[in-house]
């Protein structure tokens, strides 16, 4: 039993498709006979990669001229559905734009959205979604009882992306009935060097146990020595020590590196959700009862201010 047709909300720009889009396309190929992408913008530079991951078509709005994608993309998709082009399943990423589009679309179609999913499966005619709750200690499986299209949001890194070897997706221009009144006036890119947080082989994160903003420098030094990406707990992002783009956790980035080093992080649920999928976890914390040790492969009960400088010196000496 396969679904007839699946749409995947594509994200990315300037020839680079976002990893989450490729992950969802890969999963969609397994579940549906026809897999198509939908994109808010000019999709011509993305069609090759989308096609190589299984999308036969990409419905694209063309340049949105500064409109936020939520209203614009949802109105375009709702119109397609109204014209009889409805898919069975619509997959979007748990991202800034993915959540906006899913929410606007759910109102336009009067359909529920199932959010924060890490898996999807078919059960007879039903579509069953898996969502972790309570910091990932329990898994909830939920089935849609409403009629399709089913609107679903997936967490990054729920599936492994694999190319299918298909040719470029056919770009199909779609009409945008409503662009909404909210506009992007200007874009600001925060410069960062080294590997990206969600793509790095090693991630070194710091938390409140570092004591003060200035002490974060040793996390960056350690990350640099290990060719790792520096990360952070929400506590020190909220405190303004490092930019939001460093945040690992439920409301930040989900990371699954080969090695994750948590220094001075107690391991609030919010943080664990974002890193417990890492292959190997090293935790350094002075509180032996800290929840981070429950997920650590190697836990060092000690003072980060003593352990980290020695670790840095030892790596420099190699």
């Amino acid at each position: 039993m396969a679904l007839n047709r699946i749409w995947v909300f594509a994200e990315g720009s300037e020839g680079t498709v976002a990893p989450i889009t490729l992950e969802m396309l890969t999963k969609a190929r397994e579940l549906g006979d026809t897999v198509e992408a939908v994109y808010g913008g000019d999709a011509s530079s993305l069609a090759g990669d989308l096609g190589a991951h299984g999308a036969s078509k990409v419905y694209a709005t063309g340049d949105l001229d500064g409109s936020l994608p939520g209203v614009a993309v949802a109105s375009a998709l709702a119109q397609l559905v109204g014209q009889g082009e409805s898919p069975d399943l619509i997959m979007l990423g748990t991202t800034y734009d993915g959540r906006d589009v899913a929410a606007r679309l759910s109102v336009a179609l009067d359909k529920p959205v199932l959010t924060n999913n890490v898996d999807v499966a078919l059960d007879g005619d039903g579509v069953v979604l898996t969502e972790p709750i309570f910091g990932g200690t329990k898994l909830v499986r939920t089935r849609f009882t409403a009629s399709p299209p089913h609107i679903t949001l997936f967490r990054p890194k729920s599936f492994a992306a694999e190319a299918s070897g298909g040719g470029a997706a056919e770009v199909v221009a779609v009409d945008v009935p409503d662009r909404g009144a909210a506009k992007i006036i200007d874009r600001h890119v925060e410069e960062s060097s080294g590997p990206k947080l969600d793509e790095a082989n090693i991630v070194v994160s710091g938390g409140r146990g570092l004591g003060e903003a200035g002490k974060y420098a040793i996390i960056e030094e350690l990350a640099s020595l290990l060719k790792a990406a520096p990360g952070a707990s929400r506590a020190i992002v909220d405190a303004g020590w490092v930019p939001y783009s460093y945040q690992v956790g439920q409301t930040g980035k989900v990371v699954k590196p080969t090695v994750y080093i948590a220094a001075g992080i107690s391991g609030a649920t919010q943080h664990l959700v974002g890193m417990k999928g890492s292959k190997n976890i090293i935790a350094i914390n002075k509180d032996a009862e800290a929840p981070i040790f429950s997920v650590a492969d190697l836990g060092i009960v000690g003072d980060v201010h003593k352990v980290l400088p020695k670790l840095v010196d030892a790596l420099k000496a190699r």
Partner: protein
Amino acid sequence: MAVMNVVVCVKQIPDPAEPGKLEADNTLDRSGKLILDESDSYGVEMALQLADAAGGGDVTLVSMAPNGETSGLRTALAMGAAKAILISDEALSGAGALDTAKVLAAAIKRAEPDLVLAATESSDGYTGTVPEQVAALLGLPSITFAKHVEIADGTVKVQRQTEAGYDQCEAPLPALVSVTAGVVEPRYPSFKGIMAAKSKPVDQLTVADLGLDAGSVGSAGAGQEILAVDEAPAREAGEIVEDDGEAFQRIIAFLEELKVI
């Protein structure tokens, strides 16, 4: 604008410091004491500051709960909000995000706000779709994931969080904005504020009072059905080392075993 009326959507949730529990029907157990979701304290603070900067106006809380819980609302009233609308109805048990949005939107409409604020997501359900659904239902422009908010000349100007940094966005009022934690520093309620909050109006409404069909907004109308809740596979416990001054050597050895150095 002489005065600005702001509605803040707030949620009262089980204390996140306590382990979460489920009812027999797999809905979240909300029978214990409910508190103001910390994520919402940022929206309340932002609303108070924006109303103040505009030269006045009321900050109204809008909240939904299956029981008549008000303790979390009192916390936000103690911070300085003027009044609250609480939609409390047993029919709301098991309501999904879209149903929640329908109920909140119907209540917000009554307050005729210039601006609606909400957190980006709640700390218990964290669906993160309700603010945008409320905006869609009310036909309002919306800017989500705000890390900075200003009002000028009938326009809300927002720094919207992105993967790479932020986008400077604008929308004409009335509009809805969802705010991230850290957009402002929430104030602690003063003793005077706590005392004043006890006599501030909390308008309790049912689903029928809002003109909505009770059968369409609870679990019956959710369009989804929980099949099972299972334990997730746990990570195996690892090796714990007490630092004696040489623990860094164990980290080096572990990294060598993994062939990453």
